[in-house]
């Protein structure tokens, strides 16, 4: 096929038409795929607003995904229960979420200790957490999960919103996109809004921002910088934990080595693209997941005509790389113009000896 024979303008118009056409279908997928990225980004926003870079979100997610899966699996094995009508929840799944969150918080505590108390380089600390998480989950995966192929607690089910809502004109598809989700994905938007309000309106938010911008100033008005950073990093870990739980308890129902596949890092890019605000980061996460969802749509319902020929001619490896490419483009385009919290990455030492 000779590429010059395709009218560029025509294809562009077709592309826009196709996007509008598949939007209602890919919106729920995109919101689901955005959930772990957005939750990871919340972890990043809180940490960086307090002055702690967290490169280890990926590792926290992975650890949470593993522990959540393992605990839920063992509970399901020991106490089988019938799923409830809402979300298909079982005690095993709920306990799994709690375990996942606690696991990520424990890893976050390690990161807090390394970067706040030991004052190690925060990027190194995060990288070590990523390596450690991959190593530990790989080891225990082989030791415990691989010999038990039937281990697992299934997944949460998506909520089916009432037809009256989803059939509303204009907004119906949007409501469906947000409501036709499992419990974790559905909670993301609530978490984002609550964090946005808290960060910019509450005392905690004011102090957090002060500690991330100018810790010495916060210290001199009696704020315990180290304690606040500890609290925030550990709290932020809970969101990485939810992201991990989403992967094994809501999205797939299985654990695989390295299954986070860079989502923790894409989340970091979302933090920067979203200018260190929860809502902005959520928007960025949606952008990244939309590129993924689009690839799904093209595979399932390829467009017709020239556009279809073009899009299906592109190798699948390109679509697989799309979120990563987009992350790089976004980072390259936006970093110079968005300003990080001033004290990010710098450990705070109380008594400076000049």
């Amino acid at each position, binding site marked *: 096929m000779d590429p010059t024979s395709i009218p560029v303008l025509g294809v562009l118009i077709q592309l826009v038409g196709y996007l509008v056409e598949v939007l209602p279908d890919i919106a729920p997928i995109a919101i689901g795929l955005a959930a772990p990225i957005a939750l990871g980004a919340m972890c990043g926003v809180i940490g960086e607003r307090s002055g702690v870079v967290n490169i280890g979100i990926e590792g926290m997610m992975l650890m949470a995904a593993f522990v959540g899966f393992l605990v839920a699996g063992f509970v399901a094995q020991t106490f089988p229960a019938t799923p409830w009508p809402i979300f298909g929840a079982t005690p095993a799944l709920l306990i799994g979420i709690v375990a996942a969150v606690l696991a990520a918080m424990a890893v976050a505590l390690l990161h807090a200790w*390394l970067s706040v108390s030991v004052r190690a*380089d925060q*990027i*190194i600390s995060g990288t070590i957490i990523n*390596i*450690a998480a991959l190593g530990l989950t790989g080891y225990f995966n082989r030791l415990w999960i691989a010999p038990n192929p039937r281990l697992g607690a299934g997944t949460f089910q998506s909520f089916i919103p009432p037809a009256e809502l989803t059939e509303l004109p204009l907004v119906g598809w949007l409501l469906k996109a947000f409501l036709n989700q499992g419990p974790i994905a559905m909670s993301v938007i609530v978490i984002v809004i609550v964090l946005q309000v808290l960060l910019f309106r509450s005392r905690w938010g004011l102090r957090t921002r002060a500690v991330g911008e100018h810790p010495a100033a916060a210290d001199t008005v009696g704020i315990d910088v180290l304690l606040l950073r500890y609290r925030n990093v550990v709290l932020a870990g809970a969101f990485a934990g939810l992201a991990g739980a989403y992967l094994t308890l809501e999205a797939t129902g299985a654990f695989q080595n390295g299954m986070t596949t860079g989502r923790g890092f*894409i989340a970091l890019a979302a933090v920067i693209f979203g200018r260190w605000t929860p809502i902005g980061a959520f928007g960025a996460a949606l952008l990244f997941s939309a590129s993924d969802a689009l690839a799904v749509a093209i595979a399932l319902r390829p467009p017709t005509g020239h556009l279809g020929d073009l899009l299906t001619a592109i190798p699948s*490896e390109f679509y697989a790389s799309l979120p990563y490419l987009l992350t790089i483009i976004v980072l*390259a385009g936006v970093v110079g113009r968005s300003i990080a919290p001033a004290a990010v990455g710098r450990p705070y030492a109380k008594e400076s000896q000049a």
Partner: protein
Amino acid sequence: MSRLRGLWAEARPVVAVPLGAVVLAMIVASVVALLSSFFTEAGFDPSLPFKVFVGLFGGAFGGLDHIVNTLVNATPLVLAGLAVGFGFKAGLFNIGAQGQFLLGAVAAAGVGAALNEAPPPLAIGAAVSAGTLAGAAWGFIPGALKAWTGAHEVVTTIMLNFIGASLVAFLVLNLLQAPGFSFARTGDLGNAALPNAGFLSADLGRLHLGILLALLAVPAVWWLLYRSTIGFEVRTVGANPDAARYAGMRPGLLIIFTMTASGLLAGLAGATEILGTSHYMIASYGTSVGFDSIAVALLGRSHPVGILFAALLFGALRAGAGPMQLEAHVPSELVDVIQAVILLFLAADLIVRRLFRLRQAKRGIEAVETATETYGRKLVT
């Protein structure tokens, strides 16, 4: 004897913390193996730590073929470790050795297969060059992105690892796939394969020329860092980019140079691994070199000589992992646990110093103290 003691006194502050971290990690790993055995079919086995280390040590050093295996495993780690360590010296954290390695591997495999009937010097030279250039190109991208746009290399190199893996799959499945095999792979290397020491003894058959290349790279990188003006510039940018600009150096260019050189070394690691050991590339080539190289660079404190020894250690661990799994029935991933724990103790060198009563030891990871400095900030104005 007293000379030895003098040498130790000099080396101690630098070497003590890494050594301590390794010893502690071995202890922790034994405890992990021991405790986790409670929950396995085989059940609790108090002699497990002993079996683990017999397996590991025997697998790494118990016989000539095992020692060769250790050296072969260490070779890419020396080169990739130098790649990461060189980046650290410029304050850059190249987590992209994985991608640069893969690109170097696929380029060497492709060119090697294409030239498999050319005279060996030409075929090998072209394949090695292709691999190093591909790695260098994959390192240039994040370097240029950092210098020109401020995009942090930690995120971009990770992204490029994923993209690189997809690119390799695409190349092997489409352009480079050789016919006549039951699975997708590149063609036979023929004359492009690195010569090995098999003519001396059958046990040495895996000992390929890449080992020599890795050994030569150590003094070469050392000289570049400490005896050349470029190395001085690289180290200055790493230690204080503002002062580098003030001194008339060009941080942007140096960042690009460093990342490219780093990618080149990692690409060379990939090339020698393919041309010396694997002999062909597959679509989903599995390697742990990405994280191993970071561990090697950190354990070796970014110093070329330290990196050499750290690479030998991890090479030994990787070589011993399989035999250990056979003998002790402990998953070979235990080596990953050991590695992780070593890194944790390096970061928390405070603990190591307390336990071993070390004083005044240099900070374990001082080489990268500037790595986070330019996070989210445009470096070049």
